């Protein structure tokens, strides 16, 4: 009798353990255990205005999925226009030497492709600030009729039948659901991780390098005449300003006003970072200034001052001697971060 009860007890226990175990498991798949990554704010930098990874925990798997998506032509109508076609690593993720980038069916884009780095500090995307969160940014180029010209629905259909994506979405998010939210969050993990903080300027700030005389002179000029808008250490204050360019008669691009509908915002564009500026010609929202020399010359002599929305700081243009201009170019060149261009983590995956 005792023996029978003991047997029953053991059997019941075994059955319980089995059932209990089965109820924990997720249909035989491997447990979800991503490798969490830490986003590092460089020493001396401000915290990002919002934590872009708060609702999108940064993981190696999410980053790698985002990287694959960034370089994948499937996100475009005909397969030829991945994000990376306009955001080239060798140009600090801008389009090198192109006033406008090329989209589907020989189209020109509406504006000059901005460089992509330190996006975690950027509150608004686009030259006009129309996009309010990094996660929804990719929706614009994917669907734009001059860029990737695809629908989100079609992109997802292409991803769902690709077993590599089934595997990578599962690794990144715990199951094989492929939807727009996950795609966008993965892209955000990749784009938001592209950081640039190892230029010569940064090394000088950290005490591991020193400026040449010309660079130091240029830095002094920068601090006196440029940094009220191109504020260190990001080299932008992320504000929208009219810097005295004329309205292009063909493009009719009024910048920030296109978003706010407010005439006071006419011809205002986002102040771009000056980091990696040597890698990102041509310059301005429509790429109309081909060289760094031309860009500086615009501020010295080219600003059209009779505009109602012209930034008050520019109403007298920016005076500068020829020597100062040369030195300023030297300083701006010290903002080049070769690590950004060479970092294989940001390169096209194999």
């Amino acid at each position, binding site marked *: 009798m005792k023996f029978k009860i003991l047997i029953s*007890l053991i059997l*019941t226990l075994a059955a319980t353990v089995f059932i209990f175990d089965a109820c924990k498991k997720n249909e035989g798949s491997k447990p979800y255990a991503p490798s969490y990554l830490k986003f590092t704010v460089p020493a001396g930098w401000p915290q990002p205005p919002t934590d872009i990874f708060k609702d999108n925990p940064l993981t190696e798997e999410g980053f790698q999925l985002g990287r694959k998506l960034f370089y994948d032509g499937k996100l475009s109508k005909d397969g030829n226009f991945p994000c990376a076609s306009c955001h080239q690593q060798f140009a600090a993720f801008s389009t090198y030497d192109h006033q406008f980038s090329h989209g589907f069916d020989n189209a020109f884009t509406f504006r000059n492709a901005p460089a992509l780095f330190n996006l975690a500090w950027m509150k608004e995307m686009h030259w006009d600030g*129309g*996009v309010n969160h990094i996660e929804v940014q990719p*929706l614009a180029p994917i669907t734009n009729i001059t860029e990737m010209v695809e629908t*989100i629905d079609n992109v997802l259909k292409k991803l769902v039948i690709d077993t590599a994506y089934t595997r990578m979405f599962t690794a990144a998010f715990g199951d094989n659901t492929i939807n727009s*939210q996950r795609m966008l*969050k993965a892209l955000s993990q990749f784009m938001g991780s592209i950081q640039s903080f190892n230029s010569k300027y940064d090394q000088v700030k950290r005490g591991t390098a020193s400026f040449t005389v010309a660079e130091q002179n240029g830095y002094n000029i920068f601090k006196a005449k440029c940094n009220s808008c191109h504020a260190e250490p990001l080299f932008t204050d992320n504000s929208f300003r009219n810097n005295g360019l004329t309205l292009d008669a063909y493009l009719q691009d009024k910048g920030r006003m296109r978003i706010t*509908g407010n005439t006071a915002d006419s011809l205002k564009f986002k102040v771009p970072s000056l980091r990696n500026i040597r890698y990102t010609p041509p310059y301005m929202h429509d790429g109309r200034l081909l060289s760094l020399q031309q860009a500086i010359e615009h501020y010295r002599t080219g600003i059209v001052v009779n505009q109602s929305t012209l930034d008050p700081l520019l109403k007298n243009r920016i005076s500068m001697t020829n020597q100062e201009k040369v030195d300023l170019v030297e300083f701006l060149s010290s903002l080049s971060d070769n690590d950004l261009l060479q970092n294989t983590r940001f390169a096209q995956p194999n």
Partner: protein
Amino acid sequence: MRFSQKYCLFLLLILFLLSSCQKTINPGNSKGTVKLTFNNKVNGSPMALNTGIYTNPFGETYTITKFKYYISNVRLGLSGVPTIAAETESYHLIDQSVPGSLSFSFEADENSFITLSFLLGVDSTRNVSGAQTGALDPLNDMFWTWNSGYVMVKMEGTSPQSGQPGNVVQYHIGGFSGANNVLKYIGMVFPGGKTVNIKKGQTSEITLEADFNKWWQSPNDIKIAGLPVCTTPGAQAKMVADNYSKMFTITDIVNN
């Protein structure tokens, strides 16, 4: 005998453990269900997409090919008492072309409620919080990609009075902040002193009517000839929103 007692205890323990591994237990279980149904109408007739030919108060004729709007932050309220029943994750896209989208249900605590309120549109928080899913998925074609934010109410159609190519009429009404905010909080007391009595395990049904004809008038005159297309946030979108915010009435309440 002592052993069988122990065995029973053991079995109870196992049952307890097993039940704790079930995730979907109704806590408290004093909740009932409330079901909301939206009937879209034009001048009192059920809205017929594509086929219905309607006339607005200015004598302009039009058809409707699309009519979609967001209902969010749905709440039931009591008189003078702060207690309310609020739906969690309350975002619904009412789409006239998808019959299943015209009603939805949620759980509410047992009580006799006298008011219904909801937001016509998507609250500003969700307009600035990155990639969303479900009713807020950009796949639903209600999200502006170049000027982040949701289209709160979308109507498309045709009218001979539209000077646009193909005589199209297109209103994508959105804007969630500052002067361009078109969000409308709709609050209604149940008519005729009726109450919605939520009872455990039962479903109360609230039927609403949305009269599209309110779009054109009061307080703002919207003439198709003058505004056949409005697809950006701004003063014109606000004028349309001021009108359509008056389109809802509660037509029926059934307590089961």
